[in-house]
């Protein structure tokens, strides 16, 4: 017969919808509405886990998120998930779960040897035992072994196939907890016209509350600044086959004006020997299994309590046909005991529970030390009182006070608009404080981390008398359950050991998350290829269709090269670079930063931010310019174009576009608000292509409707025109050192322009080239790049651009250029290097005079950019070298100790090709 412990009627399960599932390979049946735990109990399965440290047999202890024992490994392969609480896992058809932390099987676990050797493994044993050898490496080896012996489930090693997402929400009142107090609070707030969200960790009850947004299966796990509440929704976990488009979990970020906590209270246990035997559970959990799931959690029960709440559980057990052998009450006989009609053993306690894989009997003795008697049972229901769930309250900086009547910490005052209601506020039965019972054997406080009452006493003896030290030394409360059932018991025992009151011991800090949060939900949809956003130019698809390899430049994707079939990326880049110098090439330069400046004082402003003179620039002309930081170092380089009388276009390097815009906005808003200057970024407005090579003019002439002869359109000329019938701006500027032009069109027409260029260039041998060839061309030409050469420590003079700095005017950064350290001999200056002996230039090499010298070998400089030059057919580099300009002609060594490479190099000028500039002016 299936489900022998299921009651014939009652409960919130749907008997018309049986669900098949497996646990450790065995097939079982449960009902819709079950959790895995209730379905296992319905089938009489109590042994579900092995404990963390001693591998002791463990059963289902609670009916909620506080479960310390019944953690299972759910699912297989990439979707396998460890440490799932069987008590909150909703059953679905085909669910497959395995027990954890056992080998070879749950019933016969080799790790249980740990239990036999437990005297050798008290709290903190690993700090004392694994002292030799006293090297970090020795400890690492032990740590590896300990990790394997202990630990819980195993994380999946495959990439997570599921989707996750974030969801922001706003409300006037957020109610946490969907019990009676929470529902009442939500209804009240909604009736007052407030925007209300109610979140509850359980499945939907099916009952709507008017004008309240209900979030079910959603656990509020943390309260952050300004009442931002983090909550995790389990969207598809309860479904056998989740809909493809739904995320598996949703991370809510709820901004609330007020929060109402109706989080309830969590029952706690009592530490007696063998209080961890399977078949032991909290009294409230037993009642939940009976009433909500219609499951008898045993046949013959002993109830052990120090408060009245357990009598309701005892009555429920009796009504369901469970033989209640006795109620063991730590208090003298009272009203509840007299009225219940059950056998009550007053002023007594369970001192020991017997049995191995399931509890078989308990020894009960009077608390004042009389003789023990043995009572047979297969179920022990314990209630040691309740702890209000004040986790979120404390995270919101709410204070706590200890209440003697309830033997619990209750919420006191909160500086934020957070209220707490119901059991969480302390609406609970009175308790006779009883934390542990004196007896031989392991009396567990923290079931999840196997911390016993003796461990707490040992910690106190060894001087770990502060509650935070106790926690770290014994690991009490440090498991995935965060000590929900054990924390207060542990600190009460510490108070006993120290002979002080519980409030004097205090509590540990309540930190988020309340329950574990799936890691995948933290990045949400921003993972994998979408970890950061990607910027694409208007020509991106063309590049991709032509097989371009892409590299990132900031957030941009740029073509590295366009390899042909069978061609390596390096060969492709060399072919592209050769073709620019031999024929003509086109490169996508849409990513360069572009800033438009307008206003009466535009020219004056630009004069202040560039080292060179800008106000002399004529309309229809452009100029290379360099900007400095306040400290005189080079900030960025680019071009300035005068589009109209008081209208300019600046270009910046790709990666510095935002920084330069911020620099300009800061100066205009803070330093010189009196200037009539306006600036806006137009990077996104324009798609841009640079056409370079000896045949560039032929290509451009075929495209545009203006005269581009050298006389009509000389070097550094700019004009508006139509290019392939698109409104365009044409610039004659060169980065490669060849005759070159740039065409800019509206970004949404960028691909049209590009295709027109490629078509017009066909007769002239035009090839597209990528950033790699562009880099080679600029190294050959000795052009600096912000980053490698302008590395934040170099002045314009260091980079060979000193002549640009106008002596006639002030500019940002100029005053500090006169500092002695920036003018004295020995500055590292830009030079060109040629590798001798045909050897490739090592990556990121430093420059030394003699590589054989003992370290530390004085460093004369370092290589900043290097490449194989297909046009010179040798390895060349740019470098920063001490007194570099005076060392032209010297031979040095470029060495890379990391790569174990060294190469003889000859120092020379930084420009390797056409130093007179005949090509670009021709």
């Amino acid at each position, binding site marked *: 017969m299936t489900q022998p412990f299921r009651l014939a009627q009652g409960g919130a399960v749907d008997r018309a919808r049986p669900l098949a599932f497996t646990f450790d390979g065995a097939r079982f049946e449960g009902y819709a509405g079950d959790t895995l735990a209730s379905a296992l109990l319905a089938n009489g399965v109590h042994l579900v886990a092995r404990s963390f440290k001693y591998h002791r047999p463990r059963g289902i202890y609670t009916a909620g998120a506080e479960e310390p024992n019944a953690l299972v490994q759910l699912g297989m392969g990439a979707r396998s998930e460890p440490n799932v609480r069987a008590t909150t896992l909703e059953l679905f058809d085909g669910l497959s779960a395995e027990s954890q932390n056992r080998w070879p099987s749950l019933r016969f676990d080799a790790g249980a040897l740990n239990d036999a050797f437990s005297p050798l493994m008290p709290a903190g044993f690993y700090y004392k035992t694994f002292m030799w050898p006293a090297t970090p490496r020795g400890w690492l080896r032990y740590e590896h072994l300990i990790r394997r012996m202990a630990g819980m489930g195993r994380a999946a090693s495959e990439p997570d196939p599921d*989707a996750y*997402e*974030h*969801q*922001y*929400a*706003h409300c006037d009142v957020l109610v946490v907890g969907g019990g009676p107090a929470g529902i009442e609070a939500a209804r009240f707030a909604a009736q007052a016209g407030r*925007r209300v969200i109610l979140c509850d960790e359980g499945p939907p009850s099916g009952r709507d509350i008017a004008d309240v947004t209900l979030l079910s299966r959603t656990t509020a796990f943390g309260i952050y600044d300004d009442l931002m509440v983090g909550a995790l929704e389990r969207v598809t976990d309860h479904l056998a086959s989740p*809909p493809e*488009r*739904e*995320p598996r979990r949703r991370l809510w*970020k709820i*901004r609330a004006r007020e929060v109402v906590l109706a989080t309830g209270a969590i029952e706690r246990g009592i530490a007696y020997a063998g209080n961890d035997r399977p078949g032991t559970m909290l009294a409230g959990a037993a009642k939940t299994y009976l009433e909500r799931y219609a499951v008898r959690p045993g046949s013959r029960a002993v109830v052990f309590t120090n408060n009245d709440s357990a009598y309701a559980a005892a009555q429920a057990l009796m009504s369901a046909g469970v033989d209640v052998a006795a109620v063991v009450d730590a208090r003298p006989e009272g009203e509840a005991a007299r009225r219940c009609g059950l056998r009550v053993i007053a002023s007594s306690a369970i001192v020991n529970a017997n049995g191995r894989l399931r509890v078989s009997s308990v020894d009960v003795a009077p608390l004042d030390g009389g003789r023990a008697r043995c009572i047979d049972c297969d179920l022990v229901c314990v209630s040691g009182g309740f702890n209000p769930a004040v986790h979120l309250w404390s995270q919101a900086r709410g204070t706590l006070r200890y209440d003697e009547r309830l033997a619990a910490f209750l919420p006191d005052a909160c500086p934020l608009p957070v209220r707490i209601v119901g059991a969480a506020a302390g609406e609970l039965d009175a308790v006779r404080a009883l934390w542990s019972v004196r007896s031989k054997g392991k009396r567990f406080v923290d079931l999840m981390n196997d911390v016993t009452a003796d461990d707490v006493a040992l910690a106190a003896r060894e001087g770990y008398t502060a509650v935070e030290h106790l926690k770290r030394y014994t690991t009490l409360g440090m498991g995935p359950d965060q000590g929900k059932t054990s924390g207060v018991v542990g600190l009460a025992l510490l108070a006993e050991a120290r002979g002080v009151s519980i409030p004097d011991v205090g509590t540990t800090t309540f930190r988020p998350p309340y329950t574990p949060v799936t890691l995948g939900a933290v990045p*949400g*949809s*921003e993972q994998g290829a*979408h970890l*950061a*956003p*990607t*910027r*694409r*130019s*208007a020509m991106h698809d063309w590049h991709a269709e032509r097989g371009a390899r892409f590299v990132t430049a900031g957030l*941009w994707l740029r073509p590295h090269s366009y390899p042909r079939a069978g061609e390596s990326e390096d060969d492709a880049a060399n072919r592209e670079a050769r073709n620019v110098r031999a024929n003509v090439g086109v490169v996508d330069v849409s990513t360069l930063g572009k800033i*438009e400046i*307008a*206003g009466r004082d535009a020219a004056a402003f630009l004069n202040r931010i560039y080292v060179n003179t800008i106000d002399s620039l004529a309309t229809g002309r452009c100029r290379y310019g360099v900007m400095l930081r306040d400290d005189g170092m080079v900030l960025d380089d680019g071009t300035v174009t005068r589009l109209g009388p008081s209208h300019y276009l600046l270009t910046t390097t790709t990666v510095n576009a935002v920084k330069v815009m911020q620099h300009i906005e800061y100066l205009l808003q803070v330093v010189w608000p009196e200037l*009539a200057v*306006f600036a*806006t970024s*137009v*990077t*996104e*407005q*324009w798609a841009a292509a640079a056409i370079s090579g000896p045949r560039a003019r032929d290509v451009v002439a075929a495209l545009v409707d203006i005269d581009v002869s050298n006389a009509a359109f000389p070097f550094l000329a700019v004009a508006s025109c139509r290019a392939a019938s698109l409104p365009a701006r044409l610039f004659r500027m060169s980065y490669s050192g060849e005759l070159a032009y740039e065409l800019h069109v*509206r*970004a*949404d*027409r960028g691909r049209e322009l590009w295709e027109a260029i490629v078509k017009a260039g066909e007769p002239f041998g035009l090839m597209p080239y990528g950033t790699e060839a562009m880099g080679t061309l600029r190294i050959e030409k000795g052009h600096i790049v912000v980053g490698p050469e302008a590395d934040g420590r170099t002045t314009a003079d260091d980079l060979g651009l000193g002549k640009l700095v106008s002596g006639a005017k002030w500019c940002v950064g100029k005053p500090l250029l006169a500092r002695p350290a920036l003018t004295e001999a020995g500055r590292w200056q830009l030079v060109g290097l040629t590798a001798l002996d045909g050897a490739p230039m090592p990556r990121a090499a430093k420059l030394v005079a003699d590589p054989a010298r003992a370290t530390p070998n004085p460093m004369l400089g370092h290589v900043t950019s290097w490449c194989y030059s297909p046009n010179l057919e040798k390895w060349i580099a740019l470098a920063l070298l001490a007194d570099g300009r005076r060392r032209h002609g010297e031979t040095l060594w470029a060495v890379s100790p990391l790569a174990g490479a060294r190469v003889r190099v000859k120092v020379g000028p930084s420009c390797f090709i056409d130093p007179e500039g005949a090509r670009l002016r021709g």
Partner: protein
Amino acid sequence: MADRLVVFEATIASAWNVQGEAPGLSSAPNAVSREGSVTAFWLGPRSWLVLGKSPGEATAAFDVSASRVAYTLSGSHAATVLNKHCPLDFHPSAFPPATCAQSLFGQVNALYYRHAAAEAITIFVARSFARDVAHHLDASAAQYGAEWAAPRPFVAD
């Protein structure tokens, strides 16, 4: 919530960043001025995004017609979908119809406009990010059975 979630690209023919003194444009934060086919979004002190024709009287006007890509979401789930990536409160009491606000969409700067018809919201992002933003919109809207409609010109109604 029976009405359908529809997403489409709202095309922009002409857009200007207007700065300085601009008669006729509201200086109130997040205000949107509408006159005929011209819509002006407040971006910051003395700065607006004007869709439609260039206002001649402004101190400075920069052509940014191709700088931004816009997507309009309509239907009762529009705000829910955007709130998967944007922390703004889209409730009409916090974000009234015919106003705008700047915030993030994921990690991307975005301008949001709530249409005069309250269930439609348009998001403007820089063109280079458009494909990324469309990907996230698509993935987030799919669970509500969203339908992508053909691009059509932006209208402020």
